[in-house]
């Protein structure tokens, strides 16, 4: 997974959405599906929003994730509504608990997967800049995304070295295993981090001029459609609040 975070090759974006739209989609999902805000009154909201990640994943040709999402979600949903009421006591409690957690978390998680696997770091940086987020925040974050695959690389080399030495989890000393992994990982990562900063600084990072960004981002028709989809539930929520306060 870590190899896929913010690493998408150019040209594999599916429906082209602006990173800011994706962020809004993610927030909407989190508020209404994960947070469950207003779901009691707007019963149709959750299911309709849950379709969104499915459509987006399919458009990005992530078929395995899409199918997995559909099956797991439908299965837990039916368990929740059809099997759940027929059980009682502890099994009922466990069943409803698990199914409830999965139906609430999964759509947002899938949306998250869609977002990180279709956005490149440059798009992310460009979007942050357009939103006037301070460079002090944007640069460390983009370095972090740059660092994930590097750490994954280091980790697999260390793992290989451990296997050749015959050190594995089969032994009983799990604490030692952690130490054996962390010591080389820290040594290598800190060295790479230092070289990375030196290279970035010699390319003029941190100057007094406002950076340009060649990454083409911008709102298109599809973005406006998605934004509309996201705004509708919020408006409905606000309207409901007023009604409640009237009574």
């Amino acid at each position, binding site marked *: 997974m870590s190899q896929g975070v913010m*690493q998408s090759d150019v040209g594999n974006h599916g429906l082209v959405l602006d990173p800011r739209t994706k962020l809004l989609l993610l927030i909407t999902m989190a508020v209404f599906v994960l947070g469950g805000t207003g779901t009691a009154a707007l019963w149709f909201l959750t299911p309709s929003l849950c379709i969104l990640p499915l459509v987006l994943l399919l458009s990005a040709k992530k078929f395995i994730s899409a199918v997995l999402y559909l099956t797991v979600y439908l299965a837990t949903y039916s368990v929740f509504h059809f099997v759940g009421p027929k059980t009682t006591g502890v099994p009922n409690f466990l069943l409803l608990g698990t199914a409830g957690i999965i139906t609430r978390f999964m759509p947002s998680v899938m949306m998250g997967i869609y977002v990180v696997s279709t956005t490149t*770091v440059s798009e992310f940086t460009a979007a942050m800049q357009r939103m006037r987020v301070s460079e002090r925040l944007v640069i460390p974050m983009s370095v972090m995304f740059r660092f994930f695959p590097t750490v994954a690389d280091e980790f697999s080399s260390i793992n290989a070295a451990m296997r*050749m030495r015959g050190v594995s989890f089969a032994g009983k000393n799990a604490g030692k295993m952690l130490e054996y992994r962390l010591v080389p990982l820290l040594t290598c990562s800190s*060295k790479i981090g230092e*070289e990375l900063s030196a290279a970035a600084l010699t390319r003029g990072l941190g100057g007094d001029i406002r950076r340009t960004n060649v990454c083409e981002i911008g709102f298109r028709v599809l973005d406006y459609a998605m934004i509309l989809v996201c705004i509708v539930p919020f408006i409905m929520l606000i309207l409901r609040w007023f009604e409640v306060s009237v009574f």
Partner: protein
Amino acid sequence: MIEMKNLDFRYANSNTGALNNFSLTVDEGEIVLLCGESGCGKTTVTRLINGLIPHFYEGELNGRVTVGGVDAVKAELYETARIVGSVFQNPRSQFFCVDTTSEIAFACENMGLPEDTIKMRIREAARDMEAESLLGRSIFKLSGGEKQKIACASVAAAHPEVFVLDEPTSNLDMEAIESLRRTILLWKSLGKTVVIAEHRLHWLRDVCDRVIYMSGGGIGIDLPMSKFAAMPPEKLQKLGLRPLSLDKLKNETPPAISGDTLELRNFCFSYDGKKQALDIKSLVLPRNGIIAVIGSNGAGKSTFSKCLCGLEKKFGGKVLIDGTACGRRALLKKSYMVMQDVNHQLFCESVEDEVRLGMSEDNEKDVQGILNQLDLLPYVDRHPVSLSGGQKQRVAIASALLADKEILVFDEPTSGLDYRHMKETAALFKSLLGKRTLFVITHDPELILSCCTHALHMENGGIREFYPLDDNGGRRLIDYFINNDKEEKNIEKTV
């Protein structure tokens, strides 16, 4: 263009000075080679030119550095960065972005250039570096040579007046070195000033105008290339330098080894189930020899070594040792790889713990002997991370020997080493000759000719040639390293 006057520099956590009263003037358009043994201060000089000293690496500095009229000591790093472009040794860690196009744009973006100009410069730089096919790719899927091309393009796109390269070829094969050579010649023709700190000298013979040999933080020799190249090879060796031309390399005829053999069977492997990354049906190799594994990047050398060490889970091949067939699991026990970055395989708090980790109990009595043989006895209580590169390599070898490993695989053991350290590594390998089977994956012809007994030349996952390194074989090897690039081109043309 560059003026350094009476420089003294000492790194913050070191007792000895890196530079002592160092003065150097480089004219506009000059291509200067900085050479000398490890620790002579070459890298320090490059860091002073690009401003990393004193702004990033701290220490005590006296003296003046002016680059293109800018006082590099006082000016902020980003101001110096507009004049000086830097290419570093490790292609893994000099990229800020994750895709190639953004990486080339990065320096220009930092300068706040308009978008259209940047796009034009990306195209121009990619064309100049022959890297057009690499645009829009993920950095993590490029080979070392391709990464170095992108690094050059990224620097060139910012149009600096001065280029500084710090050991740029350490991780490159011959073809990539040739491409880098063309790049520097291009910069030369544009009248740029270039300073290269480097151990491998042969590719720079007709590139550099001037050679500066450094020792102990000062200038030892300052000659035009024509005069420097006229020095006899023995003199260069005495200075601790690698040779200036490969065709004069001498092959040290290796001693004969016993007739035992290792047999590789069904060494085939594919990562995606379609393209064969490794395709060797059967191969008989001499046991306990030192076998150099050569071939261009992407020829399957690292897949070969991973399979040989039993690290690829889906690998189904076998090695016949003494008539017993060893599959993947047995190979994992029998072989050991010393990685290019040895830091990946040092886990413990002291050298002694390190070599005992994974040791078979019968070897208890050999611990002292092997530590002594590898000159590690004075360091048994030191933390492995605090040792020098060569010492770390020896610790890794000691642990492999004590774990009863039959097959040792070395991945680029001499990348970035000067002549003396390379020779030390070669001597170490020779001391293992006849005791273990060594596979040395390398792009370093000097190392191969100093210690290896056989050469295994891989291309496209298969074996192109396998030959003993006697006088004839030595010739063949040198030919390969000199003509490799031309040959590749001819093949491309005929296809």
